[in-house]
C-alpha cells in the first residue's frame, strides 16, 4: 500500500476515493495522511469519515462532493470546521447532487464531452457550480442541464476479490466503482483478497473492472474498516458513532490521528491495535448465492 500510494499520488492531484458507504478505502486514505500529501483535490459523493480525517490532517485544499454528512449519525465536523471557520485551512468546495456527480463520472468513463441530466432545474446549485450548465435541446424544445466529464488524476477503488492483474469482482452495492475505474487516469485497486485469474473468469458478469484499467493492485484485508465489505465484515457502527465525539474539536481530531494514523506504521498495525475481538464482532454469517452454470462449450 505504501508503495502504491507513494507512487500513484502527487501533491496537488485530484484524488477520488470510491465506494458508496460500502468498500470505502479507509486504509488508503490513512496512508495518504501518513505520507503527508498536500493540496489534494479530494472527490467523493459522500466524503464520509475518511475525508473528515484527510481534511483535518491538512491534506486537502479542495473537495468535490454531493452529500457531506456522517451517514446515519449526523455532521462531518472537520469538514464543517474547514468550510465554516477555515480550520485548519480554507477549503474550496465544488458541489453536486449524487446524480450530477455520477453523471460526470459516467461522461469521463465514456469519453464524452458532456452528458445531459434531468436534475438541477429549479435548484440554486447551478448558480454556484460552474460545471453545471445548460444547452439547447437540439431535438426538441427548451434546454437541458449538462455536466462535463470528471477524470480524476487518481482513483482508489476497492473490491472483495481481484487477481494480480487487477481484474476485480465486486458484489453488493457497487456505487460509482465501475464508473470511476474507467474515468480516472491512474487506478489503485485494493482487494480484500487476491485470487487466481480462473476465479475471476469463472464468473465474468461479476467483474467491475479489468486489469487493463488498473495500475496498482494491493492485497488489503479489512482495508474498508470502519465501513464494510459485503460478505466479509460488517460496518463498525460504533466507530461512526465515536467519530462524532472524536471530531468535536480540531485538537481532539488531531489526537485521534496521532494515535490511529501517524502512530501506526501501516494498516496491519492499525488492525492489531484495533484488536481481534472488535474485528470478530464485525463478522457476518454466510448467505451464499446459488451457483450459476456458465456451461461447458469445449
Amino acid at each position, binding site marked *: 500500500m505504501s508503495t502504491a500510494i507513494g507512487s500513484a499520488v502527487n501533491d496537488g492531484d485530484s484524488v477520488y476515493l470510491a465506494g458508496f458507504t460500502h468498500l470505502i478505502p479507509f486504509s488508503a486514505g490513512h496512508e495518504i495522511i501518513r505520507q503527508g500529501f498536500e493540496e489534494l483535490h479530494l472527490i467523493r459523493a459522500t466524503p464520509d469519515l475518511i475525508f473528515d480525517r484527510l481534511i483535518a490532517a491538512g491534506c486537502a485544499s479542495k473537495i468535490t462532493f454531493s452529500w457531506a454528512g456522517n451517514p446515519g449519525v449526523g455532521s462531518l465536523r472537520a469538514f464543517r470546521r474547514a468550510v*465554516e471557520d477555515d480550520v485548519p485551512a480554507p477549503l474550496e468546495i465544488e458541489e453536486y447532487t449524487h446524480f450530477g456527480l455520477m453523471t460526470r463520472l459516467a461522461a469521463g468513463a465514456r469519453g464524452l464531452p458532456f452528458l445531459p441530466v434531468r436534475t438541477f432545474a429549479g435548484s440554486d*446549485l447551478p448558480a454556484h457550480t460552474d460545471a453545471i450548465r445548460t444547452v439547447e435541446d437540439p431535438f426538441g424544445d427548451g434546454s437541458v442541464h449538462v455536466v462535463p466529464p470528471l477524470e480524476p488524476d487518481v482513483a482508489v477503488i476497492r473490491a472483495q476479490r481481484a487477481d494480480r492483474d487487477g481484474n476485480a469482482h465486486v458484489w453488493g452495492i457497487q456505487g*460509482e466503482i465501475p464508473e470511476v475505474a474507467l474515468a480516472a487516469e491512474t487506478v489503485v485497486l485494493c482487494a480484500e483478497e487476491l485470487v487466481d485469474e480462473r476465479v475471476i473468469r469463472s464468473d465474468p458478469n461479476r467483474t467491475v473492472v479489468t486489469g487493463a484499467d488498473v495500475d496498482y493492485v494491493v492485497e488489503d484485508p479489512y482495508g474498508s474498516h470502519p465501513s464494510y465489505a459485503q460478505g466479509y465484515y460488517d460496518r463498525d457502527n460504533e466507530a461512526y458513532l465515536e467519530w462524532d465525539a472524536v471530531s468535536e474539536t480540531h485538537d481532539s481530531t488531531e489526537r485521534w490521528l496521532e494515535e490511529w494514523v501517524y502512530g501506526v506504521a501501516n494498516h496491519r498495525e492499525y488492525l492489531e491495535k484495533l484488536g481481534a475481538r472488535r474485528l470478530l464482532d464485525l463478522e457476518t454469517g454466510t448467505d451464499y448465492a446459488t451457483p450459476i452454470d456458465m456451461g461447458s462449450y469445449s
Partner: protein
Amino acid sequence: MTDARINTTDSTAADSETNLEYTDTELLVTIAARELEDDESVLVGVGVPNLACNLAKRTHAPNLRLFYESGTIDSDPSSLPLSIGDPVLASGALGVTPMYEGFSRYLQAGRIDVGFLGGAQIDRYGNINSTVIGEYDDPTVRLPGSGGACEIASNAHRTLVLTSHQRRRFPESVDFVTSPGYLDGRESREALGLRGGPEAVITDLAVMRFDAAGELYVESLHPGVDRSDVQEATGWELAFADEVETTTPPTGEELSLLREELDPDGLYL
C-alpha cells in the same frame, strides 16, 4: 433522500378514545406509511422513511418495492439499515445496479412513484433547503447538501416531505433551494418540465398538502394540536382547509409492528 432523521421532541401523546400512547415519531411513521399504495416503487431514506415503507409493506402494501440511492432494487432488509448503503439493502434484493444506472434508468426515466424528502428548511411552495443556512459562500451552518434529494424532487411522480415543525424550519422563503418544490407556484414548476412534485408535508403537528396554486395548507391537525400551535411554528400566514380534520392516530396493530418487529431496539422510534 439522504439520512432524514426527524428530531422531534418526542413528547408522548395519548389518543383519548383508544388510550394508546405513542411518540411523535411513531405518529409520523404511521401517517407516512398510509400515504403509500400497494405495488408502488418507493425511493426510501433510512430512519423514518424506511420504517414507514416497512410498516406499509406489512399492512396495506405488501407489494411495495423499496429502492435506495445506493442502487438497490426491491430491497428486503432483514434488519433496520443504518445507512442508505447498508449491506442488508443488497442482501436479498431483486437487483443491485451501479449508482449511475439506478439514478438514470430508474429515477430519471420515471420508474419511481414516490420519493421521501426532508430538509432543514421548507417554504410555502414546498421548496427545500438541505444545503446551507446563511450565505452559500459564507455559511452560518453548512448542511450536508443534496445527496440525491434534488433529482428525487425533480423525477419521482410524487414526493412526501417529513420534518419536525418549528418556525426556523418553515421560513417564508428558504435560504437556498436544494430541491425544487413548486418554486413560485405550480405553473413555475410545470414551466421547467419537472415531473411530479410534493404531495404532502408531514410534521409532528400536522399533515399539510398543496392547493391548486401549489401553496401549503393544513389538512389535518394531530390529536391535541390546535391551529395556533401550527401557525406559531410556521413563518408565514398559513392556510387551513375549510374543514380541518384530526389526524387518525396509530392503531394498536401499527404500534406493535413498529415496536416489536421493525425497530425493537428503539433506534428511531
